[in-house]
């Protein structure tokens, strides 16, 4: 299957890396071009399935649905526990590198 697919370009790998906030060396990019291409090839097997006349499913688990909980608050973790994995902290806050305006929400 792999040889039927065009190998991913360097730019495509860089773009995915950027979206994932991962820094890659030139060597790693070259390696991932091959690995990611074969991954896509594996998954593209699905394309060969004939889905005509089959109802689309919104979710992998159709039998289980509408699981909800009551709106009852519970005691949360202690600040000590919350911050125990923080690579860096300041007072009771996590400290992280400067963030560009993300403007999402």
């Amino acid at each position, binding site marked *: 299957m792999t040889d039927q697919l065009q190998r991913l370009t360097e730019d495509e790998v860089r773009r995915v890396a950027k979206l994932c*906030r991962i820094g890659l060396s030139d060597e790693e990019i070259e390696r991932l071009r091959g690995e990611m291409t074969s991954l896509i090839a594996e998954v593209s097997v699905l394309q060969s399935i004939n889905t005509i006349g089959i109802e689309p499913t*919104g979710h992998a688990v*159709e039998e289980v649905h509408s699981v909800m909980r009551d*709106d009852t*608050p519970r005691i949360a*973790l202690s600040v000590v526990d919350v911050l125990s994995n923080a690579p860096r902290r300041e*007072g009771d806050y996590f400290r992280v590198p400067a963030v560009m305006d993300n403007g*999402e929400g």
Partner: protein
Amino acid sequence: MTEYEPVIGLEVHAQLITNSKMFCSCPADYQSAPPNTHVCPVCLGLPGTLPVINSEAIKKIILTGLALNCSIAEQTKFDRKSYPYPDLMKGYQISQFDLPICYDGHLDIDVDGEARRIGIERIHMEEDVAKLFHRTEAGSGEGYALVDVNRAGVPLMEMVGRPDIRSAEEARQYLVAYRSILQYIGVSTGSMEEGSFRCDANVSIRPKGVLEYGTKVEVKNMNSFRAVFHAIEFEIERQSKVLNEGGRIVQETRGWVEAKGETISLRSKEKANDYRFFPEPDLPPLIVKQSWVAEIAELLPELPIERRVRFEDELGLSPYDAGQVTASPRLADYYESVIQHYIEINGPSGTIAKSAANWTITELGRLSNDGQIPVEDSPLKAEYLAELIGLIDQKIIGTSQAKIAAESMFTTGKSAKITVEELGLAQITDSSAIGDAVREVIEANPSAVADYMAGKETAAKFFVGQVMKVTKGKANPTIVSELIIEQLEAKK
């Protein structure tokens, strides 16, 4: 120069009022909590944790959808939206992509007496992000940020309006009306200052008569209704200028800078597919039973527009007055309470609806602006305003005295009777006391007496003014006029 038509659509985020967060049981009241104390493995995004949907949030978003004439999806689901910023620890936000809970609604507003129907594309459920505090390292000047996760996971409802808005004023009114509905149905506090209600605007312009949309710009960071109005006005003007100078509008996100009164470019809008939405594997789909929707519909209270119409029909208020007193549910409650108390004290009245509206809107509105406190939260209780209006109607005090009393009551919270007594504002209705003042004024102004005798009726008015001056405005004007005529006629 080409004339342009603005095309505006609003996206409004509102936090829902719940006890716990959207997908975990942490307390949702982050405003007053010390940093990182309402946090658990789920909202920290630790591996191996599972989110569970808060049913109260779903109930409240359905209630919102019903209040805004939306269809409620029978089948809905949640999706992951890639979000590579530290204010969501998971690296994604749980949101809804193609099956929002509420869709295809509308909101009717009234702009300068013209009815406008603005469409609502969808209202979907998602989670709020953590709070970031930007800091600068003292020595190196290097920037960094502090994260408080308390807000992460608070139920957030996003309403996406259709691009049916055609002016900054329409946008402002639409936003006011939307917030008012959320407050009426009790799903959100709707506070822009506290950040529980946030608005972004998509603004584009097109030559008048052209149907095709222009390139849209997303405007953010508007922290008040005023800011929304001014930012949109600015953006319409900026885009018109660019096009008129032969330029091209760039699709981008711009931020409103209040201090400068302008929008600045934040970054180019990423393509939609960069969010890489996919169905949230940790949450099974949600099937909304029609019986549940019917139960929720029973909870819908009287909406602002219904209350406005009732005030117009039953109380005879003008559309303007009715709109003003129904601006928030609590103000409308206050207004209705004034009328009720008035009737309890004085019995039925044909004028109380109008006078209570005047007092609430004009006089208390002014005091409320000056004091930066909503009328309904001021120390001046509805029953005391009713009492004060009663004193005017019984001619115990005049309108100008009542205004002095109201101003004092607005801060002291004392009753009308006590205030009038303490400030000595009661009208003088004692005829002998007024008679003395009239005599004094007549004796002091012989030339005006001569004018009156010569047939100049207006001279009587001069004497009324003088008597009011002497009595510091407290004399009952009707008695004053009567006594002046009586004493002048006696001189003939």
